[in-house]
Structure formats: C-alpha cells, structure tokens
C-alpha cells in the first residue's frame, strides 16, 4: 500500500511539474520561422474541419485529382456553436487539424491565441491576393498588408428577402429605406403578421445592420485595441430596432429554432434582412412558401444611398503546427478560387464567392426556383460591391456576442433596451480583453 501511495505521490508531483513547465517553454514562440515549402517526398494527408453543408463532395472532387495531397474532411457544428471551442482546445493540446473553416469575425480571436499560420509566407497565396474582392482580403490580413491569416472563402452580402405575394395582396410597397420598412411593419402587423423577428440570440445579424449604417466596433492601431460598440451609427440602429420592439412591430421568436422556421412557413413572418446564404435557410426552413419569396436590396438609411451590410462569410485558415502549410495553402486556394469548387459550394450551400471572378460564375447567372426564378445573385453581386470597407472584428468576439446576446434577450423581454445591452457588452468586452492582457484603450 505504501509503495502504491508513493507511486501516486511521484506521479502527482510530476504532473504538476509538467503542467507548470510546459506553458513558459511554449511561450517564446511567434518568432518561429514560418517557412512554406513543399514537403517533397511522398503523398501528404491533410485534415480539414468545416461545417459547410455538402463539403464532403467538394473535397472528394479535389481528392480525385490530387493523389499526392489527400484531404480528410471532418464536419462539426457551426463555429460559435462548438467548432471554435474545439479548435481552441485542439490548439492548446497541440493536435489541431491542418485546415479549418473560420469566419472573418473569429479570425482575430484565433490570431490573438497565436493559432494561425501566416499564409503570406506561401508565395502562391501572396500572388493570389489580387483575385479577391479587396475588403475580403482586409478581413484576413487583419491590418497587416503583408499578412494573410486565411484564404477568403465566401461573403455574406445582405439584402431584403420578402414575401412578394403578401406584400402585393395587402398593397404594401417594398421598402427602400428603413423609414419605409418601419411604416411597412405597421401595415404588416395590421394584416396579422410580423415584418420580421428581432434576432436577439444571434448578434451577427445586428452586426451586419450596424456595418451597413457605418458602425465600426473595433479598431487596432498596433499598440492598443479600441472598442466602440456604442458609436453613433450603431446606437442609431439599436434605437431604430428598439422602437420596433417597443411598438410590438417585430416578433421576439428566437432565430434558428423550429418556432422560427414555423413562423416563416405559416405566413407569420414576412421579411428577413439576411445574407446571401440565407436563401438556403428560408428554402429549407419554410418549404411551403416556395415561389412566393423575392429579394430586394437592403433598405437604406437615406433615400438614394447604396450601402449593404455583411453577415458572415468564412475563410479557410491553416493552423500553426501544421506540418504541410504549402500543401494546405494549395488546397485552400483551389477550394476558394477554382470555378469547379466555387460552383459546387454555391450549389450545395448557396455560398457566394469572395473572388472577383466569382461574381461571373455561370451558376450565379441562373434564376432560383424557390424565388420564383428570380436571378437573386444579381442583387447580391451588387450588394457585395457596396459593403463598406474598414470593418474590424475584435479579438474575443465569442465573449462580445455572448454578452450582447444576453442583453438583447433581456431587452426583448422588456428589461432594459438594446442600447443598454450594447453599453453592457462594451464594458464586458473591455474587461475580457484586460483579463487576457490584451492592450485596450
């Protein structure tokens, strides 16, 4: 027994010693040579984690043509739904996949945790820069024009999805401005529906609305971060939606639930201000309404303006620790620039490419049956060029979103306002950054 106890004691102390030493040893990183050279001998197998519907078939197309670079794809829940948490844990444990899907808003968070390989070291990536819509490249270079922490994949230019049949039947004009949208909301309410729901538990949509209005939530001058969740433009957007909530013109059905699908499927919700990939969400969530939806440009803050918001959009990033960054970069470029892959991604998941040439993809010129054969991608192509540049994401968006969402939920239940929620999220975000020793002004 005493021998056993002694063994346990030894094991325990060594466990403490190991955990205590390992962290400082790993810390002086960041200066490691980031070489991007081909492996040279023999075939390479890469691991890739993504949650795009149908990604397996896209990867199959690559594997069939590239026997020397085989990609093993793993699927998971969407980023904030669990995959990011897995990535962070895997990075900590040192067994992250070679490649991962990371939305633009989460890239700074992964870079702060020192989890991303700078793909600018791969000349094939550096040379591809000009193929991408400039603002998408800003989203992956994170303020350093010589860096690329991922290859842009798709974007989420926003527009107005609306029930053309119900609008016409009730003699309501399609709103072109937010003032008209609020006026239409009253008429829709009078006709027994809701113009839309307020997305209390998915703050990303609100971010897209604020982005369109000119809100800028974060800044990074190289010395310090600035957090401005309550800037004038964002406050204006928050007050606008608070007014709709107060007047009960928007529903409080939580997004991405069966209840929410049901509202769209049973004519209770008449519009959705959403991104291009949302075309897929309505079609799968509200099959009974096929043929009745149309797409119009996003309502504007002043008549005659042409600004669009952006909601979502992903990059394909290579994690630090990948032994084959060159091969990984090669695959990421094929996935996000080749006509073959972009067409598949559009067909499987309604993704809208981040490349300039992607706008002319033949698949995007077709009408979409669910939208009464309307050529909906023409609207999104235009919106894509109208997304204001210069929107920077913060280094801990998970925390920002979680806290803002708590506040939004309270506001929808009548406790406090959306502006209060943003003020709270501002304080919480600053505190979160300070707790992690991230310099913040």
């Amino acid at each position, binding site marked *: 027994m005493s021998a056993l106890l002694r063994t346990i004691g030894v094991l325990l102390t060594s466990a403490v010693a190991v*955990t205590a030493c390992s962290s400082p040893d790993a*810390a002086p990183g960041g200066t490691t040579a980031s070489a991007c050279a081909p492996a040279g001998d023999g075939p390479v197998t890469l691991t890739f984690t993504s949650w795009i519907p149908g990604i397996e078939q896209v990867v199959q197309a690559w594997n069939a043509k590239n026997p020397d670079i085989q990609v093993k794809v793993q699927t998971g829940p969407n980023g904030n739904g669990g995959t990011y948490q897995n990535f962070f844990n895997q990075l900590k444990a040192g067994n992250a996949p070679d490649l991962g899907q990371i939305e633009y808003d989460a890239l700074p968070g992964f870079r702060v945790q020192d989890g991303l390989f700078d793909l600018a070291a791969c000349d094939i990536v550096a040379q591809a820069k000009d193929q991408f819509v400039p603002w998408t490249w800003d989203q992956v270079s994170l303020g350093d024009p010589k860096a690329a922490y991922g290859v842009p994949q798709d974007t989420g230019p926003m527009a107005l999805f609306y029930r053309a049949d119900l609008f016409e039947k009730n003699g309501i004009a399609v709103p072109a401005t937010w003032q008209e949208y609020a006026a239409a909301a009253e008429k829709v309410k009078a006709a027994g529906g809701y113009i839309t729901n307020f997305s209390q538990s998915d703050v990303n949509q609100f971010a897209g609305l604020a982005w369109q209005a000119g809100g800028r939530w974060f800044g990074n001058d190289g010395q310090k971060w600035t957090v401005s969740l309550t800037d004038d433009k964002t406050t204006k957007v928050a007050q606008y939606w608070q007014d709709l909530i107060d007047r009960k013109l928007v529903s409080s059905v*939580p997004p991405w639930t069966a209840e929410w699908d049901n509202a769209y499927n049973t004519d209770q919700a008449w519009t959705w201000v959403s991104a291009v990939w949302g075309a897929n969400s309505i079609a799968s969530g509200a099959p009974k309404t096929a043929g009745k939806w149309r797409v119009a440009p996003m309502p504007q803050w002043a008549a005659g303006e042409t600004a669009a918001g952006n909601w979502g959009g992903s990059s394909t990033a290579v994690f630090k620790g990948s032994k084959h960054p060159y091969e990984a970069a090669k695959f990421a470029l094929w996935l996000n620039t080749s006509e073959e892959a972009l067409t598949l991604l559009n067909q499987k998941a309604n993704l809208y490419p981040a490349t300039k040439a992607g706008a002319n993809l033949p698949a995007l010129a077709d009408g979409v049956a669910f939208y009464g054969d309307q050529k909906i991608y023409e609207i999104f192509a235009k919106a894509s060029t109208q997304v204001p540049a210069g929107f920077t994401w913060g280094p801990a968006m998970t925390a920002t979103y*979680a806290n803002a969402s708590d506040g939004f939920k309270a506001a929808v239940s009548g*406790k406090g306002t959306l502006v209060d929620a943003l003020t709270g999220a501002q304080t919480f975000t600053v505190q979160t950054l300070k707790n992690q020793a991230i310099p913040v002004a």
Partner: protein
Amino acid sequence: MTQVATTQPPQAEPAVPIERAGPARRGRHRYARAVTVFVAPFAVLFLLFYVVPIVYAVVQSLYVVQRTGTYGPAQEVFGGLAQYRLVFSDGPFWASVGRMLAFGAVQVPIMLGIALALALLLDSGLVTGRRFFRLAFFVPYAVPGVVAAIMWGFLYSPNLSPLKPITSTVDLLSADTVLWSIANVVTWVYVGYNMLIIYSALMAIPTELHEAARIDGAGRLWIAWSIKIPLVMPAIVLTTVFSIIGTLQLLAEPQVFRSFSSAVSSTYTPNLTVFSLSAIPNFNLAAAFSVVLALTTFVLSFAFLKSTQRRSNP
C-alpha cells in the same frame, strides 16, 4: 454502512489458511501484492481521469496571461490568486449559484418525494405489472439529457406545442417561469433513476420485519412510515447528495434552453459560466471558476452528510 465495514474484516480473516501461514509477514506480503493488483486498475484510472485533471485545473487557475502588442503571443506566468479575485468579484456567477440553490431547494425534495412515493408503491404489492412500471419509470433516464431538453422545449413552445391551451396562456419560457420549466425537465429525467436506488434498498429489507409489524396490527401506511422509510434513509441521503451535486453542475438543459428562451443567459448556471469562458478561450479563469464550483459543491454535499449523520447517531 459503518456496521458493514466493521463486520467484514473478521469474516475475511479465517479464510487465510492458518496452518500453512508460516511467518505472519509472508502472508501480509502476499496480501499486499494482491491488494495492489486489485486496486491498481482503479487507481490508475482514478489518477489519470480524476486526480490529474483536477491538479491540472488547479495549476491552470494559478496562472495569468501576459502579452505585448495587440496580437502578441500569450505568455503564461504565475499569478497567484489573481483569477480567484475575479471569481469572487463576479456578480453574475454568484447570482447563478444562488439561482441553483433556489432550484435545488425546491426541485430536489419534489423529485425525491415522487421517487420515494413511486418506490413505496411498487414495493407495497398493490401494483400489478410491477416489472413494467419499474422499467417505465426508469425509461426517461435512458433519454440523453439534451434530447429530453429539446423535446420539452417543443412542448413548452408557444406556437408549436400540442399543449397550446396551456402554452398560449402561460409563457413557460419567460424569465419568471423558465427556471421551473427546467426543473420539470430535470425531475422528469431523474425521478426514475432515484426511484430505482430507493426501490432496491426497499427490496433489501427483510420480510420478517414487515410480517412482525403486520402481526402487531400495523397498516400499510404505518409500515411504510415507521419501518420502510427509516430503513431506506441511507439510500435517500445518497440520492440527495447526488442531486445536490447534479443541481450545481446543471449544464445541458439550460444550454439547450438558451436557444429558445430569452430568459436563459450565457451565465445562467455556474457551469454555463465556465463553458462560456472556455469558449473565449480564457482557460485560466475558467479553471478558477471550476475549482470554486467544485469546492462549493463539496462543502454543500459534505455539510448535508454531516447533518444527517448527526441526526441518526445522537
């Protein structure tokens, strides 16, 4: 329990072949080796999956992060109790602990009361089809907690619920009611499990005791109250401790309810706070929260055990 422990070793002693024992030391040596062999599998697993993670969490909780520049890589340095200072000044966390105590104070007695009643009913012989009911009560426990929460979420939802007359008059997902809606889910899942533990304790009561009581003229209720319940008290105490631990560690149900109730925030229960923090990721602070939560759970369970022991052995 203590009685059993003290009576067993004398029973085991004679099993040693006294004639062949020779010097007493040799026998003990052989014993030690056997004990080691039998205990080793447990000890190794216990060490790997229990002790080491706890020690790791404690170590993590004592570190803080340092970095330079907006994207400087993190450097973990010893920070003493810095993370614990944040834990103890975190209002929402302690509010969530209070919320769980209120939850436990109401839900645990109700759940165990139902479990005890069902167990007594099955044991009374009044019920035909005992085997069927035993299984039927237990089935909800076989449903994974997340699935149960999703299912009840549908039943509670104002527009999709088949119980629309109820859900359209009372919002079961609002800030005032959602805690008790979750309590109902937890009760539904765990009643059968607790019933089974109490029921197996009831089965272990010697039938002579019932018979003697019946001959003395005791009715069924009297037997249940004066004989059965006191004898299964250890099982009730055990299920209570399990329930206290389970309550403070509530995660799956509120996490599922987060998506369809506006009243469940990202810090609604202590474990949700830990979960949200590790998603940032701020592992050091999350570790400190975990350690404090574990200690709180330990203190509460231990206090409960102590209080019941004092009552039974005055």
